[in-house]
């Protein structure tokens, strides 16, 4: 009897220990459970939490910088040339288009394609004014910096800062849905650019960067979730993001551990991280991501 009792006590203990070990392993990135934040509570996300998520999303110039680093030649075919600022009728259309063109502007700026970027600035100006945030975009300064190719860092700062100010203003003035649209547009266009380029230039770093977007995709969905029931357009958008998420489900991101290595150099500190992330993604999975990204992006451009 005592033996049986002991076994009954030990088994739950063993199971508990195993589960704890499993949860602490932290060597594999998975999407949080769908029900981890009930949809009814998503709308209760604090302004701070939303602001934090908004700032998490990578800057569009990071993808463009990676392409430049990989010596991928510039191609205008990746741009959303079919998107006509004059045809955007609703605030939804304008905000989404503002995000898409913002990513394209980052790409143009990084490659110093000044002629095209001046045209794009005009479209951005029109869209920003259409949702009453034109005052945050220093069009003349950005245009002048764009024409003068010596000041890329100033150009990037003013362009990105303008978008950041628009984002903050919209959130502070109860127009967070437009801010979310802008952020989604920026991310989607950046992802479109990366997935189109990887088809022509299958570089492993670029391939990994595409797979790693799984890390922030859930945040993006969380951001959009608050507005899914707002109108049919938003509902469609939430569905599109779920389609993208499905393509990422089987992508695995694992981690290897290591201590950072620091050294002082030129008065600053250089820290090299030795822990790494490793993306496991088959050609089929990448193909699915490329396809769904193009489908969603094209739908949104066409809808616009």
């Amino acid at each position, binding site marked *: 009897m005592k033996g049986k009792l002991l076994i009954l006590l030990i088994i739950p203990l063993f199971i508990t220990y195993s589960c704890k070990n499993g949860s602490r392993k*932290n060597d594999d990135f998975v999407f949080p459970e769908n029900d981890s934040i009930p949809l009814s509570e998503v709308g209760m996300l604090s302004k701070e939490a939303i602001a*934090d998520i908004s*700032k*998490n*999303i*990578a*800057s569009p*110039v*990071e993808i463009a*910088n*990676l392409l430049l*680093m990989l010596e991928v030649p510039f191609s205008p075919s990746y741009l959303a040339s079919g998107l006509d600022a004059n045809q955007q009728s609703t605030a939804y259309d304008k905000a989404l288009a503002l995000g898409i063109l913002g990513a394209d502007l980052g790409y143009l700026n*990084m490659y110093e394609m000044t002629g095209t970027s001046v045209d794009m600035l005009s479209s951005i100006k029109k869209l920003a004014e259409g949702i009453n945030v034109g*005052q*945050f975009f*220093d069009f*003349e*300064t950005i245009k*002048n*910096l764009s024409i*003068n190719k*010596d*000041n*890329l*860092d*100033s150009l*990037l*700062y*003013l362009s*990105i*800062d303008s978008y*950041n*100010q628009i984002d903050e203003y919209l959130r502070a003035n109860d127009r967070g849905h437009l801010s979310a649209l802008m952020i989604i547009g920026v991310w989607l266009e950046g992802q479109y650019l990366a997935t189109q380029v990887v088809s022509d230039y299958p570089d492993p*770093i670029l391939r*990994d*960067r595409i797979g*790693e977007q799984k*890390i*922030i995709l859930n*945040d993006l969905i969380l951001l959009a979730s608050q507005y899914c029931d707002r109108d049919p357009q938003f509902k469609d958008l939430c569905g599109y993001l779920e389609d993208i998420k499905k393509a990422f489900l089987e992508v695995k*991101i694992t*981690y290897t551990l290591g201590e*950072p290595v*620091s050294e*002082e*150099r030129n*008065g*600053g*500190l*250089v*820290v*090299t*991280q*030795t*822990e*790494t*992330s490793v993306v496991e993604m088959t050609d089929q999975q990448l193909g699915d991501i490329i396809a769904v990204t193009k489908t969603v992006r094209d739908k949104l451009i066409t809808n616009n």
Partner: protein
Amino acid sequence: MKKFLFILIIACSTGVFSSAQTKDPLVASCVMDIGDGAKYLKDFRVQLGKGTGTEDLRYKAHMSLWKSTKYRFTLCNDESSKGQLIINIRNENNDVVASSYDAKTGKIYPYIDFVCNRSGIYQLCFDFYEGESGLGVGVVSMIR
């Protein structure tokens, strides 16, 4: 300096600094200090009152950092700031992966170059040395 003058001339000639949406001069001057070849990504304006100095760094933000990228975190202080801005970068396990303050030597670095090899969402924790009050800016840029 040349760059700073250029942007100043452009900004003045186009009325940027006199417009209602004036750029934060502290951020703008810090961006000018990020170094040649560094490409601006984000900035964090930190303004804090006096703390105890024993608590965790008080200003926290998140940012996604990507593998195969070298980031620069430049720290600038306003002239009026009593304290000196410091930063800790924590990974998703809450481990400090980089700090501008070396507790062993007491040295505070004006910038950290962080060679990222693990993509993820990192926590950027700012405060002023020893919980002092102050105003400062952390600018994140890419070096490659």
